[in-house]
């Protein structure tokens, strides 16, 4: 949002190949994620749900990276703060709410897993777990499958910077490097792993690790969604061209506590948090749209009331929806044979 196009007649987003509708949609998706997330926090505070984990301030970059993907073909392995991302690739707020309320209709897990544990086969969102970083080798395996089959499909996997210290990060990246697999590794570096600040997590730069694996590593400002888009588009093109993986380190900041179970003021100051809140890319992106005549106060009002409606409706629906029947709680340990299914 800072740089302006040197060619005056073209906007920054047009130069990147994004239409006006695209950027408006990006903005709306960021805002949807933001409002959903805020509602999640409220619902937890009100005692309606037990737990919420937030992605606030990470959504702009999440949405931007989703827009750089092929949402018809690619495979996605998001992590628990990726609301902006999953909404952008097709999950609905209702589905997120069903997961937040742990209801049976939740497509992610039928209310078995914690919220933020995404999975949706139709959308090619690969089921994820809580132990961090295990999804990295999965993404590599999916990319290997694409290569073996000759599919023009890329897999994108994201994780926090703390999680990038797990062995699976190393093993997965290295494997993908050897075979130049179509995979994008995304480290959303928000400065903390629960209470542990970057300085106690690593002495290096996450993006620099790519050097050791023989593929490019890029650090990008997460508060600049158009730049994030550019970086991911490039990574996606490389992947499709058979040039192999890219590691992208998105620099962001976790403005909320780690989760609703955390008290972050035990390990950082309010000032530090406020400083980063001020850098929030959502109002900046709105300003960019307005500047280019793509947005107005009226549209904003319309959007906000539309989002409120969507979220209210989803909340009501999810709150009223039934839990998975306890008779079904133990199903699907293994594939059910047709005999088993009939027996029920």
């Amino acid at each position, binding site marked *: 949002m800072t740089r302006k196009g040197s060619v005056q007649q073209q906007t920054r987003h047009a130069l990147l190949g994004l239409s006006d509708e695209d950027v408006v949609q990006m903005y709306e998706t960021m805002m949807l994620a933001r409002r959903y997330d805020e509602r999640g926090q409220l619902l937890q505070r009100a005692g309606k749900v037990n737990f919420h984990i937030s992605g606030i301030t990470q959504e702009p970059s999440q949405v931007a990276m989703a827009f750089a993907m092929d949402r018809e073909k690619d495979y996605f392995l998001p992590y628990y703060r990726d609301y902006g991302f999953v909404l952008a690739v097709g999950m609905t707020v209702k589905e997120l709410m069903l997961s937040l309320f742990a209801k049976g209709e939740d497509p992610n897990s039928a209310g078995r*897993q*914690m919220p933020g544990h995404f999975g949706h086969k139709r959308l090619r969102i690969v089921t994820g777990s809580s132990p*961090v970083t295990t999804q990295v080798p999965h993404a590599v395996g999916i990319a290997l499958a694409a290569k073996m089959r000759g599919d023009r499909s890329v897999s994108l996997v994201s994780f926090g910077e703390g999680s990038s210290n*797990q062995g699976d990060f190393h093993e997965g990246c290295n494997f993908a490097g050897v075979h130049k697999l179509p995979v994008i590794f995304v480290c959303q570096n928000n400065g903390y792993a629960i209470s*542990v600040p970057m300085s106690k997590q690593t002495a290096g730069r996450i993006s620099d690790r790519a050097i050791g694996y023989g593929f490019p590593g890029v650090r990008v400002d997460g508060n600049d969604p158009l730049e994030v888009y550019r970086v991911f588009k490039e990574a996606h093109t490389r992947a499709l061209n058979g040039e192999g993986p890219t590691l992208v380190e998105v620099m962001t900041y976790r403005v909320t506590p780690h989760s609703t179970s955390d008290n972050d003021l035990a390990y950082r100051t309010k000032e530090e948090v406020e400083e980063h809140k001020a850098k929030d890319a959502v109002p900046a992106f709105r300003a960019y749209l307005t500047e280019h005549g793509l947005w107005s106060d009226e549209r904003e009002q319309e959007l906000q009331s539309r989002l409120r409606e969507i979220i209210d409706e989803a909340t009501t629906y999810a709150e009223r929806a039934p839990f*998975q029947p*306890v008779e079904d709680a*133990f199903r699907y340990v293994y594939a059910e044979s047709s005999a088993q299914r009939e027996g029920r």
Partner: protein
Amino acid sequence: MPVMEYIEAIRTAMKEEMERDDSVFVLGEDVGLKGGVFGTTKGLQQQFGEYRALDTPLAESAIAGVAIGAAMVGLKPIAEMQYSDFMFPATNQIISEAAKIRYRSNNDWSCPVVIRAPIGGGVFGGLYHSQCPESVFFGTPGLKIVAPATAYDAKGLLISAIRDPDPVIYFENKKCYRFVSDEVPEGDYAVPIGKANVMREGRDITVIGYSLPLHFAMQAAEELSQEEGIEAHILDLRTIQPLDREAILEATAKTGKVLIVHEDNKTGGVGAEVSAIIAEELLYELDAPIRRLCGPDVPAMPINPPGEKHYMLNKDKLKAAMLELARY
């Protein structure tokens, strides 16, 4: 004696051992400045400095492996796994390394490490914040494994674990942290590793178990005593490796009817070994088949409240099983 919460007993054991012995230190994710995600290590960094309550990178194999290295040269590390669900990345370090260091070096080297890991569900933690991984490590020669049910044992066993010359996995129960409080002596005492404890004397049925479900058994036993005049004999294994064979056989002989309980899923659990020991040693003393009441054989408990409740053991499930056994 002061009454103390189970979690406080754990913290106290670490604090006192760290005061007593400079070589004791704790390391893990968020154990330093934050004092642990459950507060188990609260205050330790303030008292003992950055290194003796060390915030590590998010990497369990390194947490275990670094602790093992430090232990081999004479420190006494307590490696915290934030949740036992997250100790699997450290399996290789625990099973291939810690457990085999003394044996493979013919007693030249040793590895006095403690690995603390919170187990158990009923805390709306869902699949990966509720598991009981005991059976994965159980039966690995070279490891000791303890799993206290009371605050008294939580402190006493942690002290023993820290002082033990060999690797000890210390499975603390999350649900017990604040749900369980009992009398805990001030200062130094140790609960010996490898010794079970009779929690309740009885003549009708024997319940053998460890960790949280024993509290349900105790509640059920009281009700059965009052309502049915059935007296349950309850044995807390406390140490699950090595098992206290004598205590198991004695408790079995006492009533001839055994119910084994644990939250870890039934198949391949510690209960199978307890049952097999009895079936091998004391078959003719049995007046009923050996029963096991355990977590169901599904990957883990769901987070939705009815599903979690359905999964968890509780007083009523214990009571029903105990009654059925008594009437057998």
